[in-house]
Every structure is written in structure tokens, then in C-alpha cells.
């Protein structure tokens, strides 16, 4: 042979799957929810989202280029996903400087300080969110009401989330039936007509995204389904014990960050277990912790904390929960 051929170990073909394609599909899956939030919150949603995505990408680029002195890999799209998720987890009237600080914490502290994509133990967007929640509790818990003020950004009309209404009401000794109309109906909650973070409210849009992620095989069903099941069963039991002080399971599934958390945050590759059994344990843990924080904790909402706590167990789960090996159930002969 006179020409130089290539020699490489097998396999000689590749599926064509790539990190950027996976991230692109996640971005696509988030688009229905983004469209809904644009419709509900208008200009505020647009500003916060663009700001978060932009600052995440820029921070990642700057840190990789100047602090880590490496080749920036922003083209893999992971910073875009982090930015989107961060924006989806904050109110649409959040002042711009808080968004930028949150992005810096998410990318700089939660992701890059551990070595960048693939090495961070905690979900960057959630770390950013929890940081903002603790540092700026007032701004982070004033929720613009959907549709009410599409053209205002900082001065949008605000109101409480259903979970906050519930927590507040119970604290004042009211029963759920007494709260009555203050709590939105299931259908309203499914459509997202309630106060909340800009991307977490519309359950139907998030479920469309879930279907897309499953269809493109970006994620498997294990984590979301295990979280949904655990929350439904746990709150179902509490509801059956006393429906006057405990909300029904559908309420719990549709409110707060359960949908976005289970579908997009908990399934983050880097911070979730690698095999189905581990995924189930992870999902059940998130479900239990979420309900415990919601029902007995000081915060009305607990998905973020639940996911972050379970993130910490992922290395353990990966280490001790092994996939079932081929030929394991049969005893070795001789």
C-alpha cells in the first residue's frame, strides 16, 4: 500500500452521539416551558433567561480561558443548559445583578471549581439557586403572577405560590377546605396559572419536554418516575390520614419545582447515578426528602434541597450499587 492508512483499535464505527447533541436536545426539551413562561411573564422571563444563559456561558469561557488556562469548551452546550435551568428556577422579576451573581456561583463555584463538566458533585443550577435563595430571600420569594404584568420586569404584580399559601394557611390554623379558593384548581396548576419560578409552573409544557427527552433517549424514565411515584405515594398516605391538613398528591406533584426538578434537574447526567437501581434509590430519596421538607420543614418548597442532598449520595450509589452483571444469578460451576 502506498498511501498511509489509519490504524485504530475496534470499534471502527461510532453512533454519532455527542455531548453537544445531548445538550441541544435538553435545550429543545426546555423550549415548551420557555414559550409558556414568555406568554405568562413576558418581558421579565425574557430578560432573566437571556441574562442567565449569557452570563453562564461567558463565565465558563472566562474561567476556562484565564483561570484554568485551557481550551474553552463552551460549544458543548452544558453552560447553556445550566443557564436555562438557573433562569427557570428564579422568579421573572429577579433583579439583574442577582441573576449574574447566581450564574457566577453556579458556574464558578459549583461547576468549574471542581474541574468543570463531568466533575461537579452538585447540580450547578441548583447550587446557584439555593445560594440566591439564602442570600436574597426577599427577592427570591416574590413571585410575579402569570399573565398579570407581561410588560413589567422589576415592578411586576406579585403573589404567593400555592405551596406558600398552604404553609401560611396551616400556620394560621386554617384547614385546607377553609382556604378554598385561595388555592388554584388542579387544572389551573397543570396549565401553570399560579405564582412560581418562571420555568417551573407549567406542568404540561415540562411533560412535553420529558416526552422529547425520552424520545431522543437523552434520559431514561427511571429518575423522574421514581420521584413522581414516591411523592404521590407518600403524600397520598398523609392525605388519606388527614385531608384537612395535608394536600392531595396531585397538588404536590403539580406545584413547586417537582416537575422541573424531577425531569430536568435530577436527571442531570453528572450528578445522578449511572445505573437503574441507583437511579431508583436516588429518585425515592428525592421524593421522600421533598415531602418531608414541604410538610414538616420551615421552607414551603423542598425539591432543590432534596436534589442537592441526594447529589451528595451519588458517588456512594455509583460505588456500591452495581448493575446486574450478565450471568450473575447463576452459580459458577467448578
Amino acid at each position: 500500500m502506498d498511501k498511509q492508512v489509519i490504524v485504530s483499535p475496534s470499534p471502527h464505527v461510532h453512533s454519532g452521539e455527542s455531548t453537544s447533541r445531548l445538550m441541544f436536545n435538553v435545550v429543545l426539551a426546555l423550549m415548551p416551558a420557555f414559550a409558556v413562561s414568555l406568554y405568562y411573564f413576558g418581558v421579565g422571563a425574557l430578560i432573566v433567561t437571556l441574562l442567565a444563559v449569557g452570563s453562564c456561558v461567558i463565565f465558563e469561557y472566562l474561567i476556562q480561558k484565564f483561570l484554568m488556562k485551557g481550551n474553552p469548551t463552551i460549544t458543548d452546550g452544558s453552560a447553556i443548559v445550566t443557564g436555562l435551568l438557573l433562569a427557570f428556577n428564579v422568579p421573572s422579576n429577579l433583579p439583574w445583578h442577582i441573576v449574574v451573581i447566581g450564574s457566577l456561583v453556579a458556574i464558578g463555584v459549583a461547576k468549574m471549581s471542581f474541574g468543570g463538566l463531568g466533575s461537579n458533585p452538585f447540580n450547578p443550577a441548583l447550587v446557584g439557586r439555593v445560594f440566591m435563595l439564602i442570600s436574597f430571600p426577599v427577592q427570591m420569594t416574590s413571585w410575579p403572577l402569570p399573565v398579570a404584568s407581561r410588560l413589567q420586569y422589576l415592578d411586576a404584580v406579585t403573589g404567593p405560590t400555592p405551596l406558600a399559601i398552604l404553609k401560611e394557611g396551616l400556620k394560621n390554623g386554617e384547614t385546607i377546605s377553609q382556604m378554598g379558593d385561595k388555592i388554584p384548581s388542579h387544572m389551573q396548576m397543570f396549565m401553570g396559572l399560579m405564582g412560581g419560578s418562571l420555568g417551573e409552573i407549567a406542568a404540561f409544557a415540562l411533560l412535553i419536554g420529558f416526552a422529547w427527552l425520552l424520545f431522543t433517549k437523552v434520559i431514561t424514565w427511571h429518575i423522574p418516575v421514581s420521584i413522581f411515584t414516591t411523592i404521590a405515594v407518600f403524600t397520598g398516605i398523609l392525605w388519606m390520614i388527614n385531608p384537612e391538613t395535608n394536600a392531595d398528591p396531585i397538588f404536590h406533584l403539580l406545584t413547586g419545582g417537582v416537575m422541573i426538578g424531577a425531569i430536568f434537574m435530577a436527571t442531570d447526567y453528572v450528578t445522578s447515578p449511572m445505573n437503574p437501581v441507583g437511579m431508583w434509590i436516588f429518585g425515592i430519596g428525592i421524593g421522600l426528602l421533598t415531602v418531608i421538607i414541604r410538610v414538616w420543614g420551615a421552607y414551603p418548597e423542598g425539591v432543590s434541597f432534596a436534589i442537592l442532598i441526594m447529589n451528595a449520595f451519588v458517588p456512594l450509589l455509583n460505588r456500591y450499587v452495581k448493575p446486574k452483571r450478565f450471568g450473575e444469578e447463576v452459580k459458577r460451576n467448578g
Partner: protein
Amino acid sequence: MLKTFSKGGVHPPENKISAGKSIEILPLPQKVSIPVSQHIGAPATVLVVKGDKVKVGQVIAQSAGFVSANIHSSVSGTVESIDAVLDSTGYKRQAVTITVEGDEWIENIDRSTDLKKDIQLNAQDIIKRINESGIVGLGGATFPSHVKLSVPAGKKAEVLIINGVECEPYLTSDHRLMLEKGHEMMVGIQILMRALNVEKALIGIENNKPDAIKYLKSIVGEYKGVEVHSLKVKYPQGGEKQLIKALINREVPSGGLPIDIGAVVHNVGTAFAVYEAVQKNKPLFERVVTVTGKNLPKTANYMVRIGTSVAELIAAAGGLPEDTGKVVNGGPMMGKALTSTDVPVTKGTSGIIVFQSKESKRKADSVCIRCGKCVSVCPMGLEPYLLNRLSQRMMFENMEPEHVLDCMECGSCSFECPANLPLLDYIRLGKAEVNKIIRARKN
């Protein structure tokens, strides 16, 4: 619902370009180089010396132990040299080079093409004949067939499984053989059944070969105890353990052999070779080789004498195209890239694939994002990402408890990895190192 194996698996594009091409007989080459080690096990001992005249089918190197195989001359002519020649990896291995003169076969080979159905030999003689004929697993693993047929004491074969899956993309040699030599193959299966003393034989074929399935189903009635099963397409179904799982839903234990669960697996090509050896007295000196590639002028399935240079095969298919990136011996998932086309076809060569440059180069790798795709596609239930890391950090002793030796190097993990990591490269290295550790421990 079609049967398949349950754990993992991938779906590489099939690209069975040469599926419609009948088997052609490749003209005799001028010269052949027959390596003495074409099988797993000890290299055969050379019996001829330079200048000897040999005939087609004559033993030129003798099996050197139980796990070894005879090597026969594939041509008639004069032994030119017994020297080291390049093999497919670029290293030099001992081979017998013969200059071809005419085509004179040894007398006792039956060269007629009539189908000979009745089996005269008993089990022991069949195994002896197979051993003498140098038959090895023709699916690519080249494990000496008589070893698989000699069931160890205390174990019993219950079922014979015939591998007609051909799950590797591109390759079509088994497919053509099933279509064109169906009856011979069936008789071969009956011979194997007698050798193993089993009543049942299952042929597994993926349903991307509907013509072969239909044809074999139409003739299978004539052969007692043989069943044809159509399987769902999924790589690596042609793996011995995966095929057994798909057909009889039993799992070969980790570190065990199929015989541990009463199964023996042979390839369709092997069944055909067994027919020829037992019924026609013809040792293994030729095989079907697929020559294919997207920009090759002609794709074909050739009946090739062992020892023919790969360059001759490619020349017959129109020569190497201008844009050649890689030449692979075997399938695209498990085959070996050749450093040179001046290497001989061996018993294990099932196909030669010519890739274009753009198909040949691997994409640059990025970091592991822990997506777990490698874990979910691994047919053995291993964790390739972990094995890769351990191997890169040279923590080989930690790889053994992670079942690295169960890895059959199917390549599904590397195929699927979105970060293009060379997972299998490092796992293969780890396997070799773990084997070294185990050997050292035994001594």
C-alpha cells in the same frame, strides 16, 4: 415479539451492501502464505521443508496440543520458504509460503457437489475427523472446534446452537452461505448433533436476513430436531453468551463456558466446514470472505483459499479506491485494522472492509459527562466508564472485582459514548493486565 437478549446492546447501521452478491470463487493466486497460527491455542508445528511439493489438502503443519489445529495446504505447488511474514497486526509470524503450480488435490477428497446426507461415522470418529481437518470457529474467534465438541466429564450438552446471526454490520459471508449451502449446512448440523449426542439444534438468525430465514425454514423439515429462529436485530447478538440468552433464556455464568449450562454454539460457516470434512473428506483450506466498502468499485463474497493475500481480494473487487482511510479485517465493531494489505487471509477472516477517510478517523474525545450510556449498552452488565478510569490510572488490581474479564470487547460502549472516549482501548489494556496479574498469582 421476536426474541433477543435482554441486557444492553446497540444498533449500528447495518450497511450489508454485499448481501445480494452470490459467492464467487476467487481465481487461484500465484502464491500463498499460510500462517501456522490461525487459531486460538498453540501454533501448529511445520511438517514441510523448503522445496517440498505439496498438494491441495495436504497437512503442512500439525496440531501442537489439544487446543491447536492442523494447517493444510490450500494450493498445490512448491514450498518457497518457511519464514516470518507480516500478519494483520504488523508483527511477523511464522508462515509457509507456497508457489502455486496447477490445482492438484489429494486423492481422497470428494470433489463432487452432490449432497451427501447419510452420516456414517460415530460421534468419536466425527470429532477425530474434525480435529484432523483443522476446523476452527469460523465466526472469527477461531477456537478449535473439536475442543468445543469434546464435552468435559460431568457435563452434558443438551442443545446445539447454530450462530447465523452475523450481527456485525457490513459482513454477509454467513448470510450467503446459509442461502447457497443450506442443505450442506443442515447436514453439518446433524453431524454436530451426533457428535454431541443432542436431540435439538436451534439456528438463530437476525430478521434482517428474511430470505435466509425463509429458505432455511422451507428445508428444515427434512432435518430432525433442527429449528430455525428469527431474532430481533441487535448487536452483539452474535456473541455466544448473548445468542444463548436470546434462544434458550439461560445465562452463561461469569467466567464459565456455554457447556456449563448445557449449550454448545457453532457458527454456520463451521457447520458447513464440518459437512465438507466429514462427508467429503475435505479439510478446511478455503472459506467465504466478504469484501465490501461504501466506495469500493465492486463488493462481493468470495470463496478464498487460505493464505491468499488480502491485496488480491481487494484487486478482484476493483482495487483500493483513491479515498481509502482504513482497511479492516473482520467486522467494523470487532475487526482489526490492517497496517498493510500484504497479509494473508486466515481461517478467521470473515470479511475485508474498506473505509473512506471520513469514516475512518475518530472524532476528538472530550470529558466523561457520566451519562451512563456505556453502562446501559453493555451487554455484560459492566461499567465501562469505571473500567476505563481504573485502567487509565493503572489500578489494574481493582478491575478484577469489577468483572473486567467478562468483557468480550464487543465495542458497544465506545460506539455509544457521546464524548468519543476510547473506552474499549483502555478496557482491553486492563483485561490484558488483569490476566497478567492472575497468571502471576498462579505461579
